C-alpha cells in the first residue's frame, strides 16, 4: 500500500465514524480503514493523538490571480490553504479579468496544475464582467471546469437577471452562490449599522441590505427550483430567512465565516482596517444567533472568504481601505479553539461544516468522505497544538488578519492530497 496512516482518530460523519484506526491509501484513493492494517505501507504516518478527517474544502476564497498578483497568487494562496488544513479551495471570479468565460477558467486551472499542490475549483461569474446585466457563458465555463457561479463582491441587483441565472444553471445543476447585498440599502457604508457606527460616525451597512436579498433569492429559488447557496451569511434575520426557506423545502444552503463568529462591530472601534470586511462584522446579537445556528445544524458550511490585500491597500483611512480579511491560515485553529474546544460544536459537526457539506454542495465526486474508493484527501489536526497567530509567518502574500497575536489551541498539522503530503508542520 502506498500510504498507511496509523492510529489516528478518524472522524468521518459520512460513515458515522469517530474512532482510532488505520487508514490505507493506494493510487490516491482510500482503500481500507481497519483497527489495524496488517500490511506495511511504502509510507507510514504516525497519527497517534491526531484527528484524521476527510480533506477540508474552503468554498469561498479569493486567489487574486489573474490581476492582483501583488496581493495573492494561485501558488501562494494554495500554499496558504494547505497550511490551513485545506485540500481544496473554490476561488471566486472577481479577478482581473473576471472569470466570466472559458478562457479565464482554463487559465486558472492550468496555473493550478502548474503551481498548486491542492485542488482548485473555479467559480464562474453569473454575469458578463460581473456587471449584473447579461448572463455569462455559464455552459462554456461549466465545460472548462467551474463548480458554481457567483458574482461575489458585485452581487446581482436586478432580480430578473438573478431569476434567469437561477433558471439557467439548472441545465448544469450548478449552485448559484450569492453575496447578498442590496447596494442601495448598503449606501456606501463601511461597517455594520448600529451602535458602533453611530459612535464612530461611519456610514453603516444596515443588516436589511443583506436580508432583503436573502429573502429575494429564496423566493426566486423556490420558483425556479435552482440550487441557491448564501455566501458569508452574517445576520440573525438572514439565518431566519434561510431556515424558513429550508423548512419550505427550498434548495438553499448557507455558509458563515470564522470572523463573523468571533468578532463583532465593537472590534472596529480602533479603526483597524483589518476589521473592515463585507458583509461587515455584526452585532453581538447576530453573533449569538449564528453560533446557535451552527450548533443546531441550521448553517451548512464554514468558509473563510479569504480576501488578501496588500499592506498599502489596507494602511489607509478606514472608509477608503478595501474590504476583506485573510482567513485561510487561521480558520481551523479558530474553530478548534472557540467552537470545538468550548463545546459549541462537536468534531463531527466541524468535519461536516468544513468538508462533507462543501463537497456535497459543489458536487465534488468522492470527496468530503473517507469511504473506501473515495479520494485520499486528508486533513490532520492536532487538538493539543498551541497556536499563536503571527501574520509574518503566513504563506499567503498578504497579512491582513484581525486575529494577530491570538493564542489558540488546536490546529492543522498535515495536509494530504491524493495520498501525498502537500504540507506538514
Amino acid at each position, binding site marked *: 500500500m502506498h500510504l498507511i496512516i496509523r492510529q489516528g482518530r478518524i472522524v468521518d460523519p459520512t460513515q458515522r465514524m469517530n474512532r482510532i484506526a488505520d487508514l490505507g491509501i493506494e493510487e490516491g484513493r482510500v482503500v481500507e480503514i481497519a483497527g489495524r492494517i496488517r500490511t506495511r505501507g511504502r509510507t507510514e504516518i504516525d497519527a497517534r493523538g491526531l484527528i484524521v478527517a476527510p480533506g477540508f474544502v474552503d468554498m469561498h476564497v479569493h486567489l487574486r490571480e489573474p490581476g492582483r498578483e501583488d496581493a495573492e497568487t494561485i501558488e501562494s494562496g494554495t500554499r496558504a490553504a494547505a497550511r490551513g488544513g485545506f485540500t481544496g479551495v473554490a476561488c471566486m471570479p472577481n479577478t482581473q479579468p473576471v472569470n466570466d468565460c472559458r478562457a479565464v477558467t482554463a487559465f486558472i486551472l492550468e496555473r493550478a496544475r502548474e503551481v498548486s499542490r491542492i485542488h482548485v475549483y473555479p467559480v464562474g461569474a453569473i454575469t458578463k464582467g460581473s456587471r449584473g446585466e447579461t448572463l455569462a457563458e455559464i455552459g462554456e465555463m461549466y465545460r472548462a471546469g467551474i463548480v458554481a457561479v457567483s458574482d461575489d463582491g458585485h452581487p446581482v441587483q436586478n432580480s430578473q437577471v438573478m431569476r434567469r441565472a437561477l433558471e439557467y444553471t439548472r441545465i448544469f445543476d450548478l449552485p448559484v452562490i450569492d453575496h447578498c447585498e442590496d447596494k442601495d440599502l448598503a449606501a456606501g457604508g463601511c461597517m455594520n449599522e448600529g451602535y458602533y457606527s453611530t459612535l464612530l460616525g461611519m456610514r453603516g451597512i444596515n443588516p436589511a441590505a443583506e436580508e432583503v436579498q436573502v429573502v429575494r433569492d429564496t423566493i426566486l429559488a423556490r420558483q425556479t427550483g435552482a440550487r441557491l447557496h448564501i455566501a458569508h451569511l452574517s445576520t440573525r434575520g438572514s439565518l431566519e430567512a434561510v431556515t424558513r426557506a429550508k423548512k419550505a423545502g427550498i434548495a438553499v444552503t448557507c455558509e458563515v465565516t470564522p470572523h463573523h463568529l468571533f468578532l463583532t462591530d465593537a472590534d472596529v472601534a480602533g479603526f483597524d482596517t483589518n476589521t473592515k470586511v463585507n458583509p461587515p462584522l455584526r452585532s453581538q446579537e447576530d453573533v449569538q444567533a449564528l453560533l446557535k445556528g451552527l450548533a443546531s445544524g441550521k448553517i451548512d458550511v464554514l468558509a473563510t472568504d479569504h480576501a488578501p490585500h496588500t499592506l498599502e491597500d489596507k*494602511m*489607509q483611512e478606514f*472608509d477608503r481601505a478595501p474590504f476583506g480579511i485573510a482567513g485561510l491560515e487561521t480558520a481551523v485553529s479558530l474553530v478548534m479553539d472557540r467552537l470545538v474546544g468550548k463545546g459549541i460544536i462537536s468534531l463531527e459537526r466541524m468535519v461536516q461544516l468544513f468538508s462533507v457539506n462543501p463537497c456535497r454542495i459543489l458536487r465534488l465526486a468522492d470527496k468530503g468522505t473517507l469511504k473506501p474508493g473515495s479520494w485520499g484527501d486528508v486533513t490532520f489536526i492536532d487538538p493539543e497544538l498551541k497556536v499563536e497567530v503571527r501574520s509574518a509567518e503566513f504563506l499567503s502574500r498578504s497579512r491582513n488578519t484581525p486575529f494577530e497575536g491570538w493564542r489558540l489551541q488546536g490546529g492543522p498539522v498535515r495536509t494530504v492530497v491524493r495520498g501525498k503530503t502537500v504540507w506538514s508542520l
Partner: protein
Amino acid sequence: MASLRSKDLLGIAQLSVEEIELILNTADALKQVAERPVKKVPALRGKTAINLFVEPSTRTRSSFELAEKRLSADILNFAASTSSLTKGESLMDTARNLESMAPDFIVIRHSAAGAPHLLSRVCRSSVINAGDGMHEHPTQALLDALTVREKKKRIEGLKIAIIGDIAHSRVARSGTLLFHKMGADVWVCGPPTLVPWEYHRLGAKITYGIDEALRGADVVMMLRIQHERQNEAFLPSTREYFNLYGLTRERMRLAKPDAIIMHPGPMNRGVEIESEVADGPASVILEQVSNGVAARMAVLYLLSGGAGLKPEKLRR
C-alpha cells in the same frame, strides 16, 4: 487632576469628566490673554505645531492657528490642495514625513473618520483631532461647553437641544458625548432620516418634533444640513425642512426665556435658522468663535505637558 492622560486629543469619548473640567478651567484662565494689549504668552515657545488640513476649513484652522500663535508656538500649515496627498501620497507616508520634522503637535482635519487615530499610532507628537469625517470634533464640543458654562454658570441639569442633521454631524456627536458626561439633559432632534436610531445609546433623548426639543430648553444648538456628506436624498426640499425644523422666533418661545442659541457654523440662514433669531439677543454664536481660540489654547497647553494653569502665573 493636573494633566491629561493621553498624549493626543482624539475625541470626547476618551476624556473623563475631570479632564474636561481641567480643559475648561484652563481655557477660562487663558481667555484673558485675548483681552490684553499684547495677546501672547510664551507657554509654547520653541514648540512646533503642524496644521494638516486635509479637508477644507476656515473657522477651525484660523482658530487653531491663532491659539498656537498666542502661545508662541512655531507653525507649519498644510492644506489639502497644496500637499503631496494630491499627488497620491498616502496619509501614513505624509504623517511619517511630517513626523520626521519633529513637531510637537499635529492638528489634523480629515474627511475620514479615524484618520487622527491612524496618525496617533505612528506619531510621537501629540495628535489633535480638528474634525474627522462624521466622527468627532472634540475642540468644538469643548468650546461649546465653555460657552454654555460661561452663560449658564453650569452644565449639569441643563436641557440642551441639538437640532438638525445629526447623522452627518461630528459636532452633534462630540457635543452629545460631552454634555451627557457633564450631566446635562441632551436632546437630539431632526427628521428620522437624519437621526441615527442608536443615538440614544450615546446618552441623548431623541425626538422628531422640534417643539418637544425646544420646550423648556436652556441651550438650543442648531446644525446645518451637510449636503456635501449626503450621498442620497434624505429630505424632500430645504423649504420643507425649514417649515418642519427651522428655528424661528415663534418656536423659540417654547424654550426658557433666558435660553441661548448656538451654531457651530457655517450657518445657512433661512434653512435651519431665521436671520432674526441668529442675530438676536439670545444668540451666542460669535462668542463661540472667540471661545474657540481659548479652548484650543487650553488643549495645546495641557498636551504640551502644562499642568493645571494657575491664572496668577499668567499675570506678569
